[in-house]
């Protein structure tokens, strides 16, 4: 199992990113074990309770952390490509914007922001144009899924407008009895 030191000529510094991953795995192992420790027993007949498997997983995670440390020192991790971070930030920002807006502005506006910022992150596009088309596409999607497939999607001003417009158009076609109040 022992590897010949063919890589001796390579740099001797450990792979720092891999060490960070190992630390993360170890932290996760401790978290799982801590959570398991406060669980009550159970499964009188099974003799293994809700805490048994979490403990087993914690031990394995700790083992994988150690293995990752060894791999970090032996440079077993493959090379990473150069990453271009601004686009990633645009997209993450878009997801955060959607989260922040969805309760107050409704589906179309929130998702319009996500659409525009993702498009901006992936290439050179005009942000206002992307935002406008994003809101229009989202409003259309909202209409199809919320009205026709009866999915619960949060409604905001554009959605209320759409609903009213739809009812206005369909009102004459609806049967008169029952709908009168």
């Amino acid at each position: 199992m022992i590897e010949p030191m063919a890589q001796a000529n390579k740099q001797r510094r450990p792979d720092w990113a891999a060490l960070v991953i190992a630390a993360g795995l170890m932290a996760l192992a401790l978290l799982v074990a801590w959570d398991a420790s406060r669980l009550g027993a159970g499964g009188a007949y099974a003799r293994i309770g809700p805490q048994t498997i979490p403990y087993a997983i914690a031990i394995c995670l700790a083992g994988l952390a150690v293995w990752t440390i060894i791999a970090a020192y032996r440079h077993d991790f493959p090379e990473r490509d150069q990453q271009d971070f601004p686009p990633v930030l645009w997209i993450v920002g878009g997801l955060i914007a959607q989260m922040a807006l969805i309760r107050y502005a409704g589906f179309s506006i929130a998702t319009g922001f996500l659409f525009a910022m993702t498009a901006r992150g992936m290439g050179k596009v005009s942000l206002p144009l992307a935002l406008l088309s994003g809101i229009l596409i989202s409003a259309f999607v909202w209409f199809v899924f919320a009205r026709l497939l009866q999915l619960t999607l949060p409604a905001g001003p554009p959605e209320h407008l759409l609903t009213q417009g739809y009812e206005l158009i369909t009102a004459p076609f609806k049967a008169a009895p029952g709908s009168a109040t």
Partner: protein
Amino acid sequence: MKHLVATALLAGALALPTAALAADYSIMAPAAPGGGWDQTARSMQEALTSEGISGNVQVTNVPGAGGTIGLAQFVQEANGDPSKLIVGGYVMVGAILTNKAPVTLDAVTPIARLTGEYEVIVVPAGSDIQDLAGLVAKLKADPGSVSWAGGSAGGTDHITAGLFAKTAGVDPKLVNYVAFSGGGEALAAVLGSQVTVGISGYGEFQSQVEAGALRVIGVSAPEKVAIINGPTFKEGGVDLVVQNWRGVWAGPGLSAEQTAAIGADIEKLVNSAAWKKILETKGWINTYLPGEEFKTQLATEITATEAILKDIGLVQ
């Protein structure tokens, strides 16, 4: 001309929502789309609008933790708002206790119990257990040797198994209850004789009972149910009735008149032809119980459920 059309459109847009406002309802199903509560909410929506009881009914889904997440959100949103309703059921009673939910059913206004289903105990066709007396005898001799397959821990099936043991004079803590997730997993275990008995709603076992692969040895109904071929618990010597029901509540802070108005609408719903037709197609049993009676029944059940969950050891 243009102006006229625009004015008409605007007037219409403004007038429509106000016209419909009088009988609007928004029903929350505190579960994912597709489940039993969701189906109940959407059936209510269908019947309320088609019968003209309400002009516009919206259904919203807030899934999670046996309905307790939806309930907590509902209490905040629906305070003093007579247009908001929430659907729920017996499962919620257990979930509130086991999850130690901060918001309980005390915070909402009971409107009515709508539908229900009874629990059955089944054994494989070739089992040496013939009837409830045989099951009780085996249970008393060695509780661990009887494994019960049913739904998740703390759910209706588990509670019924605990109550059954308690009523039969066996410590509910010693019940060897094996939880299965839905979709026929428990059924497979009973069919394969992996477990001694199965306990669940009749719907779960119906097809295999009719095919002769399983036998019903007990039903949790107060009297014989037409479609189920088996004795009630009481006939088998265990005096116990359990119903897995679904009902509807309104928000807190409503006046007596507002509550009464909602109750009247729901009563209209229950007596409507559209609702009866839905019950028939879905195979639901009508166990309608209006406001005050529902409230009393609910209080009794909550006390009994808390006691049995403590006995089983799920609630400290």
